[in-house]
């Protein structure tokens, strides 16, 4: 060897070139590297200084305090990672290199395993071919912009027989070329020495890792790598996920070498892997670190676990045992006290460490390299769950590591999930999994002070996925394994990761920061109810019973009617309805200015026509309205509000086909006229139909039924609007509209053009379906018509959109006085071709739940910015029009402190305020959804089903009193002076209460005395008058006549 080196002048040239290049790179990145070195070195000092481990991981499940889902530490964190955070990507050699039988590579245990166990997969002739296409891998790395690349060296490619006897020159050349290219690109290599492809000879001659001889053989191999590559490699990983090597290689048989059922072998293998790692660490620490100045660790992988019941100690202990059996198995010896977890030592099969060995293996890692990926979760029955629930919460497991191993520096060495093999570049779910994992890491860094210094997205390229072979994909870059050139095509996840690296995290990109402001004085602050079930009779019969009763007259405690006596009765009053009284109390507590509820058509007209009108029900509704008005609460009444459980049509209409029958529209007109006549003097805001664009859930036998029913609904609405416009508006001066379900839509995958189109198409099929005919053209949106026609041509749909006749078009056009919208959430839309016979299939969209967003128990995502975008979209499409948000709310399981609802209200009102003040959208009212809830239904109510107020009631009433979100030092709000005066009077009254009381007494006494005096005075005048009469003299004439 020495002679060869001396003789080879090309070798000398190479050394010079490499040295020069290395110096250049070092100068460029000295500051960053110095920071890293300092940080990691301090971690090293801390780790070596630890004399014992804390082992306090169990505390993570002992948390008694419940953290609210709206607590900032739980919400998606818009922030950046530390400035010197390292972003990387990784591969395993056997997964991507290919060229298994060429250029002198020796066989590995996986080569044989593929042949013997994965026979159905043609593993020998398909591959990613990184060995051949190194340049393409480098282009992929350049695309991402990573600061490090973690890859493994294939042991049998360097040493075909495993022993460090004669290196394979071609393999050596490949790794040198790879390392030189990385150095040239300023990408830090992180090299894994063993990623599972053990030379087959070592398995056959020694029995592989079951044999302790492997420890020295591995050390020899590592020594060669340090000598050969250590000048360019500063980060080493000895073994990738030794748990899987032992457990699946010798326990379940799912990994090479495929032995199974031998727990003794499993633990022996684990023991030897730990010793091998430790020996290599000491070797590097003693012989190479002084001049190569690198860091070395071992990648440990695990699952995460949550207890069935957090308040159950046994479940918590089982969780700790689960983590100890997997991660603790290797982490305790290396990062802890040098010995196995206590729980594992209760078994007889686990080997023992002598005291000298404990000292040897303890602290043999310069940082904690952690793997959290699907291989530690699948198959489900191979995971040590101890009867608890696995979880994908990366933040929690990082916290566990911090508590258990005394806050080490952590490199996330493998993280990500997989996609199905048929997915090419559009891996939308992978984006959200990455977003979820990465934000959990960011939360761990920012809130929990976990010292994560780097993240490795797994994996760079699609490749061989071990027991899954080629049935799953994990790459950021798509590779067609059957193609010749194996082009690396960036998937959506590659674009997303590239963006994250550029931004160094998740900077807040809100266009407008939160603002302080107020809605106008005439703004409608409302609350929405659904169908208001009427009471058919008053609840106080004593006021209508004219009889007199006596009780217990004969000692038997019964009432007896007294015959012959009739008492005076009075007509029933509105407050005699118990439910109205309750409702008025709730409205008063909320301080709303408006109340929206729906009439029950079935109760008012049981037969559907005017032959039988239930006057009692009409009176009930009139009472609701009038009692509200006394309170200063104005009504918005919905004529027809269908629900899933009740379509809301009178039975004869329902039996004759419902809205598929045009006669229903006529009946609706008669019903509307009755309501206008009976209630129209009090009601000035009418909604004809609530969310007709969601009635498709009921008429979904075929898409044509859906479209026909919708068509008839529009005509019915238009006829009612014309009726009101013609006969009642001149007298009642009200406004009529219908409310549409208006969720906003965003592309689930912003890197795919088809998702943008799908989002706009969703809005057309969801909103413009009704809004275009009524607000604009009198016809269906052209996008909708053209799309359905194109699907018909391709044979993917047989839907027929009804056609508006010229008369119908004139009838429906312009038949809305304001825009009423119900908005609950924003939907993330995926383009997906559908070909069922339902109308929802015509739009070719699927929905994605963004798991990183706060959402309710019914999985409504809290996306406040969506309502502002929706309002802008409506303004853009339907001109400047009065807009009422007639329903906006979310479900919350809490019975008292509904924090999600309060958070939702604040954020959505904030966005509506921006739309009003900045975008100049003419928002006239906001109606929170909804007043009460029913048992065993989603909890959307401000009041529980037994009418108890939740904390959001006070929150909303405060919003209303402030007219929005004003700054503190602003001028008084609407009616504030009057309120001040009232408050002043109130305080005066309270303060001077005794004085007022005695003052009233004095005045009343004085009044009594004065009245007595006046009475006495009148009597005296009468007496004087009588005396005056006696003094009248008699005339002489009278005297002569008498004599």
């Amino acid at each position: 060897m020495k002679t060869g080196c001396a003789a080879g002048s090309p070798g000398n040239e190479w050394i010079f070139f490499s040295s020069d290049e290395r110096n250049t790179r070092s100068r460029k990145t000295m500051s960053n590297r110095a920071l890293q070195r300092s940080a990691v070195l301090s971690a090293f000092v801390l780790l070596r200084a630890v004399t014992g481990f804390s082992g306090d991981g169990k505390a993570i499940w002992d948390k008694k305090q419940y953290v609210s889902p709206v607590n900032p530490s739980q919400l998606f964190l818009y922030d950046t990672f530390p400035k010197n955070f390292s972003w990387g990507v990784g591969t395993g050699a056997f997964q991507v290199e290919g060229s298994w039988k060429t250029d002198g590579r020796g066989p590995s245990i996986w080569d044989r395993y593929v042949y013997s166990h994965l026979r159905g997969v043609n593993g020998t002739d398909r591959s990613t071919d990184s060995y051949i296409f190194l340049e393409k891998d480098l282009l992929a790395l350049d695309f991402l912009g990573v600061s490090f690349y973690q890859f493994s060296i294939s042991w049998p490619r360097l040493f075909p027989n495993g022993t460090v006897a004669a290196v394979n020159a071609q393999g050596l050349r490949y790794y040198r070329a790879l390392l030189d290219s990385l150095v040239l690109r300023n990408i830090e290599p992180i090299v894994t020495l063993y990623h599972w492809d053990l030379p087959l000879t070592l398995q056959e001659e020694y029995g592989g890792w079951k044999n302790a001889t492997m420890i020295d053989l591995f050390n020899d191999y590592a020594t060669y790598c340090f000598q050969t590559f250590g000048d360019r490699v500063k980060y080493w990983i000895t073994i990738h996920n030794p748990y899987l090597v032992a457990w699946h290689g010798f326990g379940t048989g799912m990994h090479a070498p495929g032995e199974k059922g031998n727990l003794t072998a499993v633990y022996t293998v684990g023991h030897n892997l730990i010793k091998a790692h430790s020996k290599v660490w000491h070797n590097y620490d003693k012989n190479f670190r002084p001049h190569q100045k690198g860091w070395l660790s071992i990648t440990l992988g695990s699952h995460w676990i949550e207890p069935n019941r957090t308040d159950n100690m046994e479940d918590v202990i089982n969780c700790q045992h689960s983590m100890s059996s997997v991660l603790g198995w290797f982490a305790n010896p290396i990062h802890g006290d040098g010995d196995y977890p206590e729980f594992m030592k209760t078994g007889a099969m686990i080997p023992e460490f002598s005291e000298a060995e404990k000292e040897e293996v303890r602290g043999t890692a310069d940082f904690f390299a952690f793997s959290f990926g699907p291989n530690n979760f699948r198959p489900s029955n191979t995971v040590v769950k101890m009867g608890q629930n696995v979880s994908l919460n990366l933040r929690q497991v990082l916290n566990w590591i911090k508590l258990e191993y005394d806050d080490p520096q952590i490199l996330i060495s493998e993280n990500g999930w997989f996609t199905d093999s048929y997915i090419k570049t559009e891996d939308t779910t992978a984006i959200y999994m990455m977003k979820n994992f990465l934000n959990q890491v960011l939360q761990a860094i920012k809130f929990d002070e976990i010292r994560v210094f780097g993240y490795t997205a797994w994996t760079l390229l699609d490749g061989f996925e071990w027991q899954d072979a080629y049935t799953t994909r994990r790459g950021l870059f798509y590779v067609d394994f059957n193609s010749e050139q194996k082009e690396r095509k960036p998937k959506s996840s590659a674009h997303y990761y590239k963006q994250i690296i550029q931004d160094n995290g998740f900077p807040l990109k809100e266009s407008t920061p939160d603002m302080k402001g107020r809605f106008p004085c005439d703004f409608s602050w409302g609350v929405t109810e659904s169908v208001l079930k009427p009471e058919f009779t008053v609840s106080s019969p004593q006021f209508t019973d004219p009889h007199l009763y006596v009780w217990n007259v004969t000692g038997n405690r019964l009432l007896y009617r007294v015959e012959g006596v009739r008492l005076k009765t009075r007509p029933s009053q509105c407050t005699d309805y118990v439910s109205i009284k309750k409702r008025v109390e709730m409205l008063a507590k909320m301080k709303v200015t408006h109340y929206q509820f729906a009439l029950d058509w079935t109760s008012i007209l049981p037969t559907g026509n005017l032959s039988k009108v239930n006057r009692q029900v009409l009176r009930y509704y009139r009472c609701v309205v009038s009692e509200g008005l006394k309170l200063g609460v104005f009504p918005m009444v919905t004529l027809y509000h269908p629900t899933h459980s009740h379509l809301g049509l009178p039975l004869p209409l329902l039996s004759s086909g419902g809205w598929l029958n045009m006669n229903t529209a006529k009946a609706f007109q008669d019903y509307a006229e009755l309501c206008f006549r009976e209630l129209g003097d009090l009601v000035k805001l009418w909604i004809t139909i609530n969310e007709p664009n969601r009635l498709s859930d009921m008429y979904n036998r075929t898409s044509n039924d859906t479209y026909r029913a919708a068509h008839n609904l529009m005509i019915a609405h238009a006829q009612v609007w014309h009726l009101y416009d013609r006969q009642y508006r001149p007298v009642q001066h009200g406004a009529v509209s219908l409310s549409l379900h208006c969720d906003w839509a965003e592309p689930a995958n912003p890197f795919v053009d088809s998702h943008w189109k799908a989002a706009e198409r969703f809005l057309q099929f969801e909103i413009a379906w009704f809004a275009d005919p009524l607000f604009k053209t009198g016809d269906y949106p052209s996008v909708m018509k053209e799309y359905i026609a194109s699907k018909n041509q391709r044979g993917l749909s047989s839907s027929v959109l009804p056609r508006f006749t010229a008369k119908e078009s004139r009838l429906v056009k312009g038949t809305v006085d304001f825009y009423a919208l119900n908005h609950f959430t924003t939907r993330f839309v995926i383009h997906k071709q559908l070909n069922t016979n339902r109308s929802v299939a015509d739009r070719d969209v699927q929905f994605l739940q963004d798991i990183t967003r706060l959402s309710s128990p019914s999985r409504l995502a809290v996306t406040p910015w969506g309502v502002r975008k929706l309002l802008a979209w409506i303004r853009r499409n339907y001109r400047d029009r009065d807009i009422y948000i007639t329903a906006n709310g979310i479900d919350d399981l809490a019975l008292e402190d509904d924090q999600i609802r309060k958070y939702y209200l604040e954020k959505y009102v904030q966005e509506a305020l921006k739309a009003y003040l900045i975008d100049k959208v003419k928002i006239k009212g906001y109606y929170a959804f909804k007043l009460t809830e029913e048992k065993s239904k989603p909890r959307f109510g401000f009041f529980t089903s037994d009418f108890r107020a939740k904390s959001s009631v006070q929150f909303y009433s405060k919003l209303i009193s402030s007219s929005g979100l004003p700054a503190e030092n602003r001028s008084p709000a609407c009616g504030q002076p009057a309120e001040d005066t009232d408050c002043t009077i109130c305080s005066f009254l309270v303060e001077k209460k005794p004085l007022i009381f005695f003052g009233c007494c004095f005045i009343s006494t004085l009044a009594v005395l004065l009245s007595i005096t006046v009475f006495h005075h009148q009597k005296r005048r009468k007496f004087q008058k009588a005396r005056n009469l006696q003094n009248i003299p008699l005339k002489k004439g009278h005297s002569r006549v008498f004599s």
Partner: protein
Amino acid sequence: AYPIPDSSPLLQFGGQVRQRYLYTDDDQDTEAHLEIREDGTVVGAAHRSPESLLELKALKPGVIQILGVKASRFLCQQPDGALYGSPHFDPEACSFRELLLEDGYNVYQSEAHGLPLRLPQKDSPNQDATSWGPVRFLPMPGLLHEPQDQAGFLPPEPPDVGSSDPLSMVEPLQGRSPSYAS
């Protein structure tokens, strides 16, 4: 001095009774609890149920009987290893030896035949499973009254780790309107 309740020496031989769920995650794609139904069938149930609450009673050191509390049937094993629930206790068929493993799991073997307790297979394609090793059961404490979930807080659903979408992000159907839910 008042006597300690049940301090009579005659009660010392009353026997120890434990209420447990027998949980296993071997040889199945999903976890299972041993369940004795009222018709005598013995199955593995993914979730706990009243039928899976068992009463483990010691007969002699290391040997127990297993009674389904709901069905009032004893867990018994046929000579070929098949399990059934019997209303009557047969010492030969219904006695099990309880072997404690080092990892907290237990193995139960028929005292008479030495066959391990194994939940019935459901068309298992993996024929090698029988040679993998004895089925392990974890005795989970049985609570007579499950505590109700704290209002407003639900534990997250366990992820479907066999799926490329383990957190069920993609919804096949359009979500229903809250306005229609009442």
